[in-house]
Structure formats: structure tokens, C-alpha cells
């Protein structure tokens, strides 16, 4: 599995990468909205999971979801936010900051359940 982590706080991003790697998931980090959009432009089809922080230093993380949709990339996404806002129409899983590892793991599990089935050869 491969994940995109869109998080502008490097320490949080680093911790999440380690948590994902522990589960055998390769993670690519985008530290900004712009970096995330660049990654999607390069390859939007190779991600099985995305973690997107809603509040990024250069804009809204929701823009990343919009770009995913525009490119037809149906990536199960965890939206992370520290604000009270109704995001449940935007993504499969909403994760409220601050969160514990157990909550993050549960969110990843929920995304894994809703991921498209792997193609059978």
C-alpha cells in the first residue's frame, strides 16, 4: 500500500509516516497544499490512502480532495482537523486533532475497508 500524507507540521508528518510504515504502508509526505497538488499532478493513481490536514500553511487541504476528484482518483481519505467544522460530507473519515495513535489506526483501518478491491489477476 502507498499513502500520501499532507501535513504542514513536520513533526506530525514524521510521526504519521512511522505509524504507517509500521503497518507496511509506504508514505509520501507533502508539506503543503502546493506540494500535494504537484504530487497528484505527477501521479494521482498510485495512492491507496491519503491523510490530509485541512488547515495548511498555504491553503485549505480540501483543495487537495477537489483535485483528487477532478483527476478521478478515488483515494480513501482521512481528513484531519483541529476545528469544529462539518467535514463529514467531504471525506470518508474525519480525524479530530489532537488524536491518539489508536484513533489514527482506526481511521486507517476504516479507509482500508472502503478501499477498492484489488484487481484479481
Amino acid at each position, binding site marked *: 500500500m502507498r499513502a500520501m500524507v499532507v501535513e504542514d507540521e513536520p513533526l506530525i508528518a514524521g*510521526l504519521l509516516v512511522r505509524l504507517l510504515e509500521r503497518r507496511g504502508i509506504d508514505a509520501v509526505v507533502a508539506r503543503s497544499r502546493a506540494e500535494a497538488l504537484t504530487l497528484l499532478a505527477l501521479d494521482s493513481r498510485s495512492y491507496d490512502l491519503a491523510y490530509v490536514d485541512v488547515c495548511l500553511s498555504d491553503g485549505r487541504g480540501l483543495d487537495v*480532495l477537489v483535485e483528487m476528484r477532478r483527476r478521478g482518483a478515488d483515494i480513501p481519505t482521512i481528513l484531519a482537523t483541529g*476545528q469544529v467544522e462539518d467535514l463529514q460530507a*467531504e*471525506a470518508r473519515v474525519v480525524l479530530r*486533532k489532537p488524536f491518539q495513535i489508536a484513533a489514527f489506526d482506526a481511521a486507517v483501518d476504516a479507509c482500508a475497508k472502503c478501499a477498492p478491491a484489488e484487481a484479481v489477476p
Partner: protein
Amino acid sequence: MFGTGEEHRRRTRVLVVHTDEATRNSARCALETSGAVVDVAPCARVAWAMLVAAAPYDAVLVELDAAHPVHIPLQTRIEALTPDTAVVIVAPAATSGAHLLTPFTPHAVVSAVTIAILERDLMRRPLVELAMGLAGIGTRSPTAAFHVDSPWAGSARPHREAA
């Protein structure tokens, strides 16, 4: 794929210990807005009473005041009483060893607490797992985070409002 609205969260419990009421309320507001359950204390004595009386906190924000270094005994006592509680040191700008600098934004407070809790959770993992995967942040002792060479202070920006 979009819009089914599953939310994963256990409400985080945080205690804010700060002598300045505005700072206290600012942190409380930011954390409550994020959905956390927040208690506040104006001093170490009240904080200790709350720590003993209340259910364990996920995190405690403690003011670092060089003139009145209550954070040191309080930190030690927190570690003894509830070792699973993450401690976030709050201090004015240009203070070394702090995790969160004042004045701070709501985003900074929530990020600082998130980092502290994730680090705490990682520290509770089996040692073999730490040894395999957690170079740097994960292998530090919680106490180390309070020194100048802490991973927080060293890698980065302590959290504060941009100028």
C-alpha cells in the same frame, strides 16, 4: 468514496496550567474548539489537586517561568502520578526547551498537543518496536524533551504565531 462521514475520535482531555488568564483561556478555547475536554489551573498547586482528583489527562500544558520554575516539580510529579500523560511546556518566545511559544495560534496549540500525545503513545510501545523504527523522536525519553536539545526545540519551530 466521499461523504459517508465516519469520524474517529476519543475526546482528548487536557489540563492547561498557566498564570496568565488570557493565555489560559486562549489555549482552552483552541482546544475546546477542536473537541477536547479542557480544564484550567492558574498555578501548580491547583493543577496538582486537579491531577489527583480528575481522571488521567492525555496532556498537560505547563507554563515555563524562569523566575518561578514550577514546571520542574510539577513535571516530575505528573510523570510519577500519571506517566502516560504528555507534558507540553509553554513559554514566551526565545525560550529554549519549550514546545509551545506564546503568543500562539489555535492551530499551534492543537499541533503541539497532537505531537505530544503521539510521542507519548509511541513511547508506550514495546521497546523492540521503538528500537526498530523510532530513531530520533521515539527513542528519546519524555524527560529529554524538556531540554535544549529536545527534538522539538531542535527540529524546529516551536509552535507560535507567525510574526
